[in-house]
């Protein structure tokens, strides 16, 4: 590598670092929402099928387990660690309480930028059927 090329390489690297680091500059400049979104919980309910912290981190795994148990094994009853027995159903258990998808599910999903494929099939409760985030 000659001296002439060194300048080009350094310039190129600098441009790359600036472009690739864009998420960091943008966040540091305060333009990104940094606080966790406010979730609206269903009125009158005090507990979910599992503890809130567990649900926040692992509800996807739980739903996958439920899916395989119900569809493939025919097992429909879930024994919660904290909260008794529940019918394993996104549609009829989860969405029965969390009826407002936009104010609950979509808030975190939009914040972290995930688009779960569930809503193509699983029906959101009618009250908010108009505001599909998908």
């Amino acid at each position, binding site marked *: 590598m000659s001296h002439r090329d060194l300048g080009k390489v350094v310039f190129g690297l600098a441009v790359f670092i600036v472009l690739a680091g864009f998420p960091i500059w943008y966040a540091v400049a305060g333009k990104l929402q940094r606080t966790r979104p406010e979730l609206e919980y269903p009125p009158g309910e005090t507990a979910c099928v599992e503890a809130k912290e567990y649900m926040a981190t692992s509800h996807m795994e739980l739903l996958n387990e439920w*899916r395989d148990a119900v569809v*493939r094994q*025919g097992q429909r009853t879930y024994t919660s660690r904290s909260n008794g027995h529940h019918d394993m159903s996104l*549609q009829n258990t989860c969405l029965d309480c969390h009826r407002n998808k936009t104010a609950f599910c979509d808030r975190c999903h939009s914040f972290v930028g995930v688009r779960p494929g569930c809503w193509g*099939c699983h029906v959101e*409760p009618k009250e908010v059927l108009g505001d599909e985030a998908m």
Partner: protein
Amino acid sequence: MKRCRRDFLKLTGFSLLGLGVGSPAAGSGESRGEPATGIRWAMVVDTRKCRRTAGCTACIEACHAAHNVPEIAESRHEVKWIWKEKYPAAFCNQVHPYTAESIRNLRVPVLCNHCDRPPCVRVCPTQATFRTQDGIVGMDSHRCIGCRYCLAACPYGSRSFNWLDPRPHIPAIREDYPTRTKGVVEKCNFCQERLAKGKPPACVEASRAAGCGAISFGDLNDPESDVSSLLRTTNSIRRKPNLGTAPSVFYIV
């Protein structure tokens, strides 16, 4: 060297003999009429009762409403879990030029036969369709890759594929059951979700409500069930019996 070869040949010969003895035993099972433990779901359609109510579609409406099955106008994109076919179409090889007109024009409900030896399960590359212990051929729409091999393999044309997004074509979406999405296969599931709650399949309930009671459902392993008594007392046939699929849907003609 000679001795080794002789021993090898002896060993091979005995092994093959052993295989030959073993294989008939390996093939036995429920499909040969041997009793099995546990539930074995089956359906009996009494077409004599269907004959009295020509034009009735109660079973179809109930099933399609309960399961958010779309109504698609273009017939090549149709999705249907249960529908009516004319007798000669449902039982291709079992009519002849002198078959009675009343039989020829009879429309019978056809659906997934939930075969004992289902070719669709055999060909599925992801086991998205599978056979449960109680005799139902299930469908996992989460796993289906939409290759449609099962549509090719089904000898009864019971399966439908979602060529487009079904949602806009569902007359009244029920919130207690999911829909499917474009690109996956669907078919009758013997109302597994209702059986889990001790209810009969939607078509059975509808046929009772419509007054004909043409469709019965029950456990073949229970000698007192509706289906067992019907099959014991009346002659019944199945669709395409020569193919060896052993359907669980029986027809009384």
